[in-house]
């Protein structure tokens, strides 16, 4: 793990937090980075590290990669996606009022916002939108869309921008990369028909929640069912999301009980489940804490030094160092 911007020491920690067995670890350095991130996340929680109180704004570059003009989403549609993100991550989405009463105390304003980048990597003014016509009729989950040489669009520096690719992604609605992976593929990919809440966005994935979900992964959130198939043994490493079996689809009726999690059941209205856009509308305090942990270390380059200092204030050196 590299030293975060601001000159802080690398926050390795010799804990025992297991790295999830399903993490794709084709690269040893990636597995090592993932372990370090989880160790620090776990250590911050144990140490009751300070929570961030200031809003962090993430600059976003949207790469629109299209063969057919119909997939070349409009500026308006892109703006709608940014608006959705800013509502969802601030618990300012109108449908947050639908959270069932037992789960309302867990609803979190994550204090994270997003804005299209105003400056490009060369320091020039930009709209924060890159449009690339491609010869590729469609893309899969193999990262090709992230490389000009493969018909996509090259990432902007991942320590300064959240890269968001929009393309004809088949059959996925979106996929992400967890923190700690290669910079050249860092970011999220969303299908043109599941992006934003206007234009080509198509029901039931027409409210912009696919990007909310994928960016949750980008900030180190796991699926609420624990990525263990339909079993009850997996964990999302968040305490205030009930243990759940497998993903929920569609728009379930509350309560939906699995894994003995009654009476309230699965938190299927969480952004990190697999329900339809109209059926998901909350992050939890525990998830917010986990995203904070990512912003305190592996995503620290997006946080002002003063804010970062506050996130580590009073935390023992033994937690901050190996």
């Amino acid at each position: 793990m590299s030293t975060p911007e601001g000159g802080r020491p690398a926050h390795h920690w010799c804990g025992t937090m297991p790295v999830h067995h399903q993490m794709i670890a084709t690269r040893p350095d990636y597995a090592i980075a993932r372990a370090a991130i989880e160790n620090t996340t776990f250590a911050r929680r144990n140490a009751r590290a300070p929570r961030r109180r200031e809003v962090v704004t993430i600059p976003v570059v949207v790469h629109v990669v299209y063969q057919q003009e119909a997939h070349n989403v409009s500026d308006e549609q892109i703006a709608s996606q940014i608006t959705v993100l800013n509502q969802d991550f601030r618990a300012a989405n109108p449908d947050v009022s639908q959270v069932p009463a037992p789960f309302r105390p867990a609803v979190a304003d994550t204090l994270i916002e997003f804005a299209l980048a105003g400056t490009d990597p060369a320091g020039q003014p930009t709209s924060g939108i890159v449009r690339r016509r491609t010869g590729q009729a469609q893309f899969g989950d193999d990262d090709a869309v992230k490389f000009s040489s493969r018909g996509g669009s090259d990432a902007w520096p991942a320590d300064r921008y959240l890269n968001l690719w929009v393309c004809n992604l088949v059959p996925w609605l979106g996929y992400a990369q967890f923190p700690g992976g290669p910079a050249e593929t860092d970011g999220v990919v969303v299908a043109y028909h599941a992006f934003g809440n206007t234009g080509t966005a198509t029901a039931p994935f027409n409210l912009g929640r696919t990007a909310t979900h994928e960016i949750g992964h980008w900030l180190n959130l796991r699926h609420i069912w624990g990525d263990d198939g339909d079993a009850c043994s997996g964990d999302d490493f968040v305490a205030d999301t009930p243990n759940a079996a497998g993903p929920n689809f569609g728009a379930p009726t509350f309560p939906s009980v699995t894994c003995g999690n009654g009476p309230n059941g699965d938190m299927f209205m969480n952004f990190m489940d697999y329900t339809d856009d109209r059926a998901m509308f909350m992050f939890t305090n525990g998830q917010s804490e986990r995203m904070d942990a990512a912003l305190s270390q592996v995503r620290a380059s997006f946080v002002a030094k003063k804010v970062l200092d506050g996130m580590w204030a009073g935390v023992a050196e033994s937690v901050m160092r190996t």
Partner: protein
Amino acid sequence: MNATAAGLPGDWVHAREEDTGGAKVYRPWGHPLPPSRWRHRIELRPDGSYVDHRLGADDRSPRARGHWTVEPGPRIRLRPDDQGEPARTLEVVAAEPGRLVLKDLP
């Protein structure tokens, strides 16, 4: 494989909307289905190999490969190439043109 394998080879995708009684209904890849955040897909190849498109933690579909055989029942036995992965058995509830119904067995 043997004669009871008729109708089993194919590139199958889970049509969960059609599930009944704990059994999972699969349709051929490309069959018109509503969009979904994820659908299980399994390629049962005629040469006895298979590709299991799993659900990844980052929403991708990591592929697990192995070999499949048909056992009395009929049942499908999936033996992963990864020696660390346990074998799985699926009961074939129905195998019709364009429709395969499977049930996980412990």
